[in-house]
């Protein structure tokens, strides 16, 4: 089995040989013997060349996020088909545009300090949100003009909900 790890525009091949559940993994000219076992949901014990590691999976593939000793690693692991897709179309998922202001937490919109057409500077407060009894200022991520205000005061929002669009 071959996977490709995407780092910027590069695809690093990783070869996995499965010998009755014992994995021999070759990457960047190095060889790793890995004995993977499942401990619980998203909890794995990996013996990597004898080193005992507890691997916690936080986010599934292709944009895999896992944690070892409280250190997080984010690695994009692609199969052949996904690699070709990305080579042709670039990123399969468009990253959020920088002008989209999203809720950093679930909470309540208390007040909106700008209106459509306002010119805003980076760092300027746009609106006030309340979450867990704290007021939080949501600030402009870029210099720009307010194009659209999606929420209104006293509206409850979820994390990552679009609040305001800047241009």
């Amino acid at each position, binding site marked *: *089995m071959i*996977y490709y*790890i995407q780092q910027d525009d590069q695809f*690093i091949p*990783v070869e*996995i040989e*499965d010998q009755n559940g014992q*994995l021999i*993994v070759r*990457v*960047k000219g*190095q060889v*790793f013997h*890995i004995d*993977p*076992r*499942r401990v*619980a*949901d*998203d*909890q*794995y014990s*990996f013996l*990597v060349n004898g080193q005992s*590691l*507890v*691997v*916690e*999976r*936080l986010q*599934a*593939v292709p944009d*895999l*996020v*896992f944690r*070892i*000793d*409280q*250190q*997080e*690693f*984010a*690695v994009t*692991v692609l199969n052949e088909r996904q690699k070709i897709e990305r080579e042709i179309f670039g990123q399969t998922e468009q990253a959020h545009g920088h002008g989209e202001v999203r809720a*950093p*937490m*679930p*909470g309540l919109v*208390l007040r909106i300090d700008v209106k459509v057409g306002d010119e805003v500077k980076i760092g300027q*407060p746009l609106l*006030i949100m*309340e*979450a*867990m*009894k*704290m*007021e*939080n*200022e949501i600030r402009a991520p870029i210099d720009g003009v307010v194009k659209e205000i999606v929420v209104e005061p006293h509206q409850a929002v979820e*994390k990552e909900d679009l609040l305001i669009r800047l241009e």
Partner: protein
Amino acid sequence: MKRIRKILVANRGEIAVRIMRTCREMGIQSVAVYSEVDRLSPHVLTADEAYLLGPAPSTESYLNMDKIIEIARKSGCDAIHPGYGFLAENPHFARKVAEAGLIFIGPRPDTIRLMGSKTESRKIMQQAGVPVVPGTTRPIKDVAEAEAIIDSIGGYPVMLKAAAGGGGKGMRIVRNSSELPRALEAGRNEALNAFGDDTIYIEKFVENPKHIEIQVIADEHGRVLHLWERDCSIQRRHQKVIEESPSAVLTPDVRQRMGETAIQAARACGYVNAGTIEFLVDEDLNFYFLEMNTRLQVEHPVTEMVLGLDLVKLQIMVAEGQPLPFDQQDVQAQGHAIECRIYAEDPFQNFAPSTGKIEFLKNPEGPGVRLDSGIASHSEITMYYDPLMAKLITWGADRQEAIARMIRALKEYQIHGVQTTIPFCLAVLQHPDFVEGKFNTGFVEKYWKSPSAAAQPDARMLAIAAALRYFTEQHEAYLNGELKAASDQQVVSAWKIRGLKEMLRER
């Protein structure tokens, strides 16, 4: 002397569990109260009895004074312990409890009211000769008045504070006059929402202070003791995250003087039961009275660990009218203790609250480790309550050992489902300035500007990542029954799939 046999704990989460543990050790029955979303919360499972308060919002549950008192009476309680937060520093509640013929485990209502007003408490402390930060004790009416006061105390920066405040709520640093109107308004709103009182006052802002507090305890017979200090300088948004005792920087002389000043302060307000005097300490180790917390503090375990005391037990004994069973010279600290607060927050997204369900939990264990936790596997972390999930405390023979133990314990701690302050605490504990004790309340602002959660993976991590994808996909394929016997093409029977599933579950 009144004997306490049954206590209602008017709180939730880790502090409710912590109080109930002492009750059980003392042979006292404990009664939990809970909101609709907390039916399966650890405090309900820990208590001897539990009664429903109402819907999730705290105004309809944990802040419902009359309902709580009614439950206490009906269930035959002698006393109510308020924990911290919620009703802990509400003088009306303390008075109502007393009027209902129950014991409020804490100071007298008058003391709570007096020290709860930051402006009045400043006045009393000044009169008692306790050093205070320059500022005003007058409530601010408008921007013009605020500006006049700021001029009179030597200009910016200043700190706006809620008179009824605590826990950093309603607090704002203002560095110049253009920031003043907005800060005043935001502070007022926050104070009104959090405490039902929008009174704001102004203090000179002491740059880069340490935040060091002294635990005191007083009985009804006039004995007032200090239980040494806790350094709580590692804060984000004016809320503590890491606390330790003893402080790494205080000289024996300053330490002694702070302890004596704290006793002086407690005497000045006629204090009874456990309380904490918070001080700001500047770089030259000058200390100023900040406020008094008239309750058990979140970080009380570090004091318990170095002194070998149970503060909740002492609180209950004092509430019964018993004299404190020791004197000042008996209060000797041994070793060093550190506490890390484990919040459901994302330290990489400006400590934004993180809600969700705890999918997996593995608690740290082993030598010198204490965990006061309010969560369990499958607990739901909602936005209704404070995001503090647990407190991890380690004790060591010295500071170095306590730090090493904390790092070890934090690495054992696995919480899935929400973001936590664990990676933040680890980074702080390994920072050279923390290790050397050279830190103040500006630490987070200085060193945690744009941290990144993910580290750069080396070849070994790439191999692990690919192996993780391969292994999990194999596993999922087995579970879906998609993998047919490779050599022969026969259809896998339902029995065989079941056998495979069970085999996989076992490993």
